[in-house]
């Protein structure tokens, strides 16, 4: 039995297979409409999340399966003091697969150690969020046709943004990927990514402060939100939250085939006027998130559709 804790749990070959399956689901949804008939997905969300939970539930429903679960710790037995290990043992009796989000880092790993069913880490605090990375990879691969030979711009909060760290870790496994890291001084990429990941693997990268300086070099621009909850000081948050706003004018500097991705939710780092630009693919990205989660559920349940 296999679980998914980190995007690096899959080898490049396994990832290719998963993304191939997700692409086939996109093209032939009807073929998979009953693949999980009679199967149940438990969504155990100890902290609120609209997008990820609904995306998982939509994925299972699209496969013909059913869903059950809870959407906050208050409505679960955690409020009574039950351990994660005990909860997952019980849920293993009710469902066939579980997607778990928990504010504590490593929570899904604890669950997987005691679980009788596959566990998918749907976010464990600021640690890992592998299905977001799979979504990002599928979006890039589907719309660019490749995951290598790309210049990727990562913009915004590169210090605390776990999606950025996971994406870098996943993309360095492909040939000739270059990164342009766009952030204010205070939100630069942490040294353990700069030194232990990028430099250690001889990956080409540069760090810039102005988005305009990088725009015309990029194949993909990955925007992130500056998250209020990461700051101890409200003043710092207010100063940095509007540091980058992607506007129509800035988009004019970009290549015609550049893609704009964003893990969402967006606050105001991408101006609404950019939404109609065909290069803005962040809502398509949410759709790819459903396909990739469908592929993941089938893979972990070892269901093959001929």
């Amino acid at each position, binding site marked *: 039995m296999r679980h998914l804790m980190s995007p690096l749990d899959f080898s490049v070959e396994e990832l290719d297979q998963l993304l191939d399956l997700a692409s086939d689901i996109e093209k032939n949804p009807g073929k998979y409409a009953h693949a999980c008939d009679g199967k149940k997905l438990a969504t155990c969300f100890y902290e609120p999340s609209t997008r990820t939970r609904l995306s998982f539930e939509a994925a299972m429903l699209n496969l013909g399966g059913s869903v059950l679960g809870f959407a906050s710790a208050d409505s679960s037995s955690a409020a009574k003091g039950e*351990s*994660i*290990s005990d909860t997952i043992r019980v849920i293993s009796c009710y469902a066939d697969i579980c997607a778990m989000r*928990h*504010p*504590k*880092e*490593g*929570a899904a*790993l*604890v669950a997987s150690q005691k679980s009788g069913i596959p566990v998918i880490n749907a976010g*464990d*605090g*600021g*640690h890992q969020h592998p299905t977001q990375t799979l979504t990002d990879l599928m979006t890039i691969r589907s719309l660019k046709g490749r995951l290598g030979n790309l210049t990727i711009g990562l913009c915004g909060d590169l210090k605390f943004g776990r999606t950025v760290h996971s994406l870098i870790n996943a993309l360095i496994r492909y040939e000739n990927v270059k990164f342009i890291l766009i952030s204010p001084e205070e939100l630069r990429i942490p040294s*353990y990514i700069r030194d232990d990941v990028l430099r250690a693997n001889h990956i080409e990268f540069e760090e810039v402060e102005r988005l305009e300086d990088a725009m015309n070099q990029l194949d993909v621009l990955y925007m992130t939100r500056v998250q209020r909850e990461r700051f101890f000081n409200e003043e710092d948050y207010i100063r940095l939250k509007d540091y980058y706003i992607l506007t129509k004018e800035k988009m004019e500097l970009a290549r015609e085939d550049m893609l704009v991705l964003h893990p969402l939710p967006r606050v105001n780092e991408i101006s609404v006027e950019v939404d109609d630009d065909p290069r803005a693919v962040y809502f398509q990205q949410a759709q790819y998130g459903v396909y990739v989660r469908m592929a993941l559920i089938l893979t972990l349940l070892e269901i093959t559709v001929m």
Partner: protein
Amino acid sequence: MLNISGIHEGFVLDHIQAGMSLQIYHDLKLDKLDCSVAIIKNAKSSKMGKKDIIKVECPIEALDLDILGFIDHNITVNVIKGDKIVEKKILKLPKQVKNVIKCKNPRCVTSIEQELDQIFLLTDEEKEVYRCKYCEEKYTNPNRRKIKFG
């Protein structure tokens, strides 16, 4: 030099950083063993200037070499049998350590989950970096020595 011939069967931990012997005494749980233990502090050393030594009269299997390797793998372990040094054990950094150190990350699941073992995995042997199995918080051994002995 100090005389170790007083031990019939047991071990001598040599080249301990001066001042570290009492911590090692506790970490190895030598206080729980019913055997004679001698702690020598600030002995003269040609290599180290000063060093500590621990001599324990007990069966060698009673010693947890993994924990000792984690604390300081430059310590020399002399195994004594029949009043003689029969082996010098080379300590290695253990691949994992269980319930020796605690994760200090307040956001780590180990801070809330009952009876969960504290497990750290060796992720960089050269830099002697351990990371929490659950949250990957980094732990660098504060006793790490820059110069290796023996």
